[in-house]
C-alpha cells in the first residue's frame, strides 16, 4: 500500500537534499516542501480510504528470520490519524521555516529525516522495527536543536537526546524481556499482545515500558527536558517536537505498554498513599503534570517557556485519558494527541517565527513595549485563536478532546476529574496572561522607539491557515477522526485492555 511511501519519500527527500549542490537555499526549500506535501497527500489518501478502522498490513517482508523479526508495517485508525497529524505539521513546519538561511539544505535534510522516522514509528507493526524508528528520531532532533536553535541550544539538545535515549533504553529492556519470555519467535505486535505473559512479569514490565515511553511523552516528573528543549529548538523543530514527537511517547504507551502488558494495570492488592495500582499512580502523575505544568506556565517570563510548559500540561491530559481505560477516555486521548499537536504547532509558530524572529526577544515584559496587536495583527489573531483552542474553547479541537477525557476521568477517578477542572481554569489564566502581556499590553507601556516590524510573509500565513483550518475542522466535526479511532480501539489488539470493563 502507498502509505508506506510516506516514510520512503521523506528519507529520499532528505538524501536528495544532502546531495544537492550547496548554496541553493531556494531549491532546497522547494524540494522539502514538495516532499512534505507528497507525504501529506499520501497520508490523507490512506486516511480517507480506510474503511473499518482495524489493522491492515501495508508491507510485510522477513527481515531477520532467525529471530522472527519482520519488516512489517501496518495501519489502523489510530496510526492513520497520527500519520495525518504528522503530515499536516510537517507541511506547516516547512512553511514556517521558509526563512532559514544558515545551512538550509542540512536543516531540511535533518527535518525530513525526522519526519520519515516519525511516520515509521506510527506505521510499524513489528516492535523491533518500531524501536528502530523510535531511536532514529533522536539523532536528527539533536542536530536540529544544536545547530539551528537559540537559547542554550547545545545544552538543551543534549538533555533532550539523553532523556530520550534513557527512555528508549528502558523500553528496550522491556521489549527484549518480553521477546525472550514469549519464546523469541516473533516480535509482531499482534503475536506479543496475544501471548499471555505471567502476571508478575507484567507487573514490572508495564511500568518500565510505560515510563520509558512516558519520558518522551512528558510524564511528570520526567518532563524536565521538554521546556528546555522546546525553548532551545528552532521554530519548526519545536513544532515537530511538541506537536508530534511527544505524541510518539504517548503512542508508545498505548500501543506497546498497554497492549502488551494490560495486567500491569491491575490492582496490587495493597495500597500505598491511597494508590492501589500502576494505573492509579500514572493517573495521579498525569494530573500533577496537568496542574503543575499550568501553574509553572503562569509565572514564566519567557514567552516560549509558557508554551513549553503548556505542552507538558496538555500531555498530562493525554496520559490521563490513557489511564481511564474506558472507550471515551481513550478516544479522547487520541483526539487530544491530534488537537494538541495542531495547537502547539500553531503557538510555537507564533511565538518563535512570528514574534521572536521579528522582535528578537521572548521576554514578556519587553514584548509589552512593542504593541504587537497593532504591529502584527495577524499574529495576534492567530495566537488568540490558538490560545482559545488551548484553553478548551468550544468550536476548536481542544474542547471535544478535553471533554471526552474529563468524562472518562469522571468514570474512573472522580476526584482527579475535579483537579483537572482546576487545571483547565489555570490553563485559561496562563494563556490569558501571556496573550495580554505579549499582544495587548497597556498603551502606557508602549515605546515608540521600535522600528516597524516586518510584515507577516505569505508562507507564514499559509502555514497558520492550514493549522487553524485543521483545528476548526476537528473541533466542529470530530466524527471524522472518531469514526476510525473508535473501531481501532475495539479491535482484538486491545482485547487485554478491555476485560469487560469497557464503557
Amino acid at each position, binding site marked *: 500500500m502507498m502509505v508506506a511511501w510516506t516514510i520512503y519519500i521523506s528519507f529520499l527527500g532528505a538524501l536528495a537534499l544532502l546531495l544537492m549542490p550547496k548554496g541553493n537555499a531556494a531549491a532546497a526549500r522547494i524540494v522539502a516542501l514538495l516532499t512534505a506535501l507528497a507525504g501529506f497527500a499520501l497520508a490523507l489518501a490512506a486516511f480517507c480510504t480506510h474503511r473499518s478502522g482495524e489493522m491492515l498490513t501495508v508491507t510485510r517482508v522477513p*527481515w*531477520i*528470520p*532467525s*529471530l522472527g523479526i519482520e519488516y512489517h508495517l501496518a495501519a489502523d485508525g489510530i496510526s492513520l490519524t497520527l500519520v495525518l497529524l504528522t503530515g499536516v505539521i510537517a507541511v506547516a513546519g516547512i512553511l514556517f521555516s521558509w526563512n532559514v538561511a544558515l545551512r538550509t539544505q542540512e536543516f531540511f535534510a535533518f527535518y525530513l529525516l525526522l519526519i520519515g522516522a516519525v511516520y515509521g514509528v506510527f506505521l510499524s507493526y513489528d516492535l*523491533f522495527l518500531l*524501536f*528502530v*524508528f523510535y*531511536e*532514529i528520531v*533522536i*539523532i536528527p532532533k*539533536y*542536530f536540529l536543536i*544544536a*545547530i539551528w536553535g537559540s537559547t542554550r541550544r*547545545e545544552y538543551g539538545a*543534549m538533555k533532550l*537526546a*539523553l532523556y530520550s*535515549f*534513557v527512555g528508549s*533504553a528502558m523500553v*528496550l*529492556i522491556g521489549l*527484549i*524481556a518480553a*521477546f*525472550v*519470555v514469549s519464546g*523469541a519467535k516473533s516480535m509482531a505486535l499482534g503475536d506479543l499482545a496475544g501471548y499471555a505473559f505471567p502476571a508478575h512479569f507484567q507487573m514490572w514490565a508495564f511500568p518500565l515500558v510505560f515510563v520509558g515511553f512516558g519520558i518522551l511523552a512528558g510524564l511528570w516528573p520526567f518532563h524536565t527536558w521538554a521546556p528546555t528543549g522546546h525553548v532551545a529548538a528552532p521554530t519548526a523543530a519545536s513544532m515537530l517536537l511538541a506537536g508530534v514527537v511527544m505524541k510518539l511517547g504517548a503512542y508508545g504507551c498505548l500501543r506497546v505498554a498497554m497492549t502488551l502488558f494490560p495486567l500491569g494495570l491491575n490492582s496490587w492488592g495493597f495500597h500505598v498513599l491511597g494508590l492501589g495500582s500502576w494505573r492509579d499512580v500514572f493517573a495521579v502523575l498525569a494530573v500533577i503534570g496537568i496542574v503543575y505544568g499550568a501553574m509553572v506556565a503562569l509565572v514564566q517570563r519567557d514567552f516560549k517557556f509558557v508554551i513549553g510548559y503548556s505542552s507538558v500540561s496538555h500531555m498530562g491530559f493525554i496520559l490521563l485519558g490513557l489511564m481511564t481505560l474506558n472507550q471515551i477516555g481513550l478516544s479522547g486521548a487520541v483526539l487530544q494527541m491530534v488537537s494538541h499537536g495542531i495547537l502547539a504547532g500553531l503557538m510555537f509558530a507564533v511565538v518563535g517565527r512570528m514574534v521572536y524572529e521579528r522582535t528578537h526577544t521572548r521576554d514578556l515584559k519587553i514584548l509589552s513595549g512593542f504593541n504587537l496587536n497593532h504591529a502584527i495583527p495577524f499574529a495576534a489573531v492567530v495566537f488568540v485563536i490558538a490560545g482559545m483552542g488551548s484553553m478548551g474553547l468550544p468550536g476548536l479541537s481542544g474542547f471535544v478532546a478535553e471533554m471526552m477525557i474529563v468524562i472518562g476521568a469522571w468514570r474512573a477517578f472522580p476526584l482527579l476529574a475535579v483537579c483537572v477542572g482546576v487545571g483547565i481554569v489555570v490553563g485559561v489564566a496562563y494563556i490569558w496572561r501571556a496573550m495580554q502581556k505579549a499582544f495587548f499590553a497597556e498603551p502606557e507601556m508602549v515605546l515608540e522607539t521600535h522600528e516597524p516590524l516586518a510584515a507577516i510573509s505569505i508562507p507564514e500565513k499559509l502555514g497558520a491557515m492550514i493549522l487553524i483550518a485543521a483545528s476548526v475542522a476537528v473541533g466542529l466535526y470530530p466524527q471524522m477522526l472518531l469514526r476510525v479511532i473508535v473501531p481501532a480501539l475495539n479491535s482484538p489488539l486491545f482485547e487485554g485492555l478491555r476485560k469487560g470493563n469497557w464503557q
Partner: protein
Amino acid sequence: MSAFHNALFQLALPEIILAVAALAVLSVDLLVLRTRAIRVRAAVATALASGGCALAMVRIFFAAHSANVMDGMLLATPLIQLVQVALLLMAILTLYVAVDSTFSEHVGEFILIVLLATAGMMFMVASHNVLVIFVSLELVSLALYVMTGFDKRSPRSAEAALKYFLFGGMSAGFLLYGFSLLYGLSNSTNLSQIALAVQGRPLNPLLIIALVTTVIGFGFKVAAAPLHFWAPDAYEGAPLPAAAFIASSSKIASFFTFYTVMTLGFAGVEGVAWPHGSAGWVPMLALVAAASMILGNVAALAQSSVRRLLAYSAVGHAGYMLLAIVSHSQTSLAALIYYVITYALTTLGAFAAVGVVQEATGGDQLNDFDGLSRRSPVLSACLFIFLLSLAGIPPLAGFFGKFYLFFSALQSAPRPLGLIWLVALAIAMSAVSLYYYLQVLKRVYVTPPAADAQKICVPWLRMAVVVSLAAATLLLGAAPHILLRWILLAGVQ
C-alpha cells in the same frame, strides 16, 4: 607420520601462505626496492601482502570444513574458518589504511609484522590446546608491541610500547602459570580433557588460581577493567594503523579465544551469577564485565583526545562483549562473533577517519574536529555513521549487535531473565556513551570551523576504505541477516 604432516600442512596452509607472503614482502622490499620512493615501496608491499591474504582467504574457502590435528592442537570448523576470514579481511583493510602513512621508512618490516600477527591470531583461534594458544598469543603480543613502538620519531609511541610490553609480559606470565596449573590438575593440555578433569569436584584452590590467572591473561588482551591500563596509551600513542589493528583484529581473535577457553576449558565450573550466586568463573566475569562497562564509559566522558576516548570506549565495549561470555550459549556465541566483527569494522573506520584529521590538523583533540562537516563532508558523514554505530543507534550495525547480545544474555541464563541486571547496566552505560559520542559529533557538525581551517583532502585509497566501511556498517545494520545467517550456519554445532 606423513599422513599427520600432510594433515597439518593442509590445515595450516593459510597461515603458511601468510608467512610466505610476509617473507616475500620483506625480501622484495630489502633487496629490490631499496632505492625507490617510499610510496612505491609501500604500494608494492601492500599489494603483495594483500595478495597473500586474499590467497589465504581463497584457500580457506576451499579447505575441508572439518579437521582436527593431534587431538585439538589445530582444528578447523566452519566457525573458526569464518573468524579467520574476518581476521584476514581486517588485515587487508589495515594495510590499505597504512599505505599512505608516513610514520616510518621501514615499510616492509611493518607489513611483515602485521602479517605475522595475523598468522598468529589465526593459529590462536584454531586451537584447543593451551600450549598452542599460549604460543600464538605470544606471537601476536610481541608483534603488537613492536607495532606500537614503530614510530621512532614519537616519544609517545615508545612510551606506549613499553607500557604495553610490561603489562603484557606480566599478564602472559600469569596466563602461563595458570595454564601450567591446569596441566597439573588434569595431566593434559587439551581444553576438553582439562574440563573433564576439573569438573564435578569441589573447587580446588589451585583451580581458582588457574581461573583467576586465565581471566587476567585474557582480560588484558581484550582490555577489560581492571586490566585495561595499557589501552589508552597504546591507542593514543601508537602509529595510526597499529592502533587501528590493535583495536580491531586483535579484539576479534582474543574474544573468540577467550570464549573458547572459558566455555570449553572450564566447562562445568561456571557457577551462577544470579540470583543465588555460586562459585565459578561466571560471577567473576560478570564483575569484570560490569567494571569494564562502568569504568570505560565514565572515563571516556572526561577525555579530550579522541583516540583516548575511543580507547576507553573500547573498554566499555569489552564489557558488553564479556556479557556474551558470561551467558555462554550458542546464541551468545553467535552474538559475540557478530558484535566483535561489526565492532572491528566500525572501529577500523573510525580510526582511519580520525587518522585523516590528525594528519591534516596535527592533533586528535576535540577542537581539531571543529567544523569538520564543512571541511570534508564525506569524511564527516562516515564518522557520523561510525560513532553512532558504536553508540548503538539503529539502523546501524552496532545497534543490532547490542540487541542480539542482550537478547542472548537474557535468554540463556540458567533461568530466563536471570542476567537482567547486567543487561540493564549495559543499556544504561550505552546511554552514557551516547553523550560522549555526540560530543565528538557536535564538534564535527555544530561547532563552526576555526578561522584558518581549510578543506581536507583525503588520499583516495583511504577514502575508499572509509566509505566502504561506513557502507558496510549501514548495510549490516539495516540487513543484519547477511552476516548473521553466515554465523548461524557456521555455528550450528
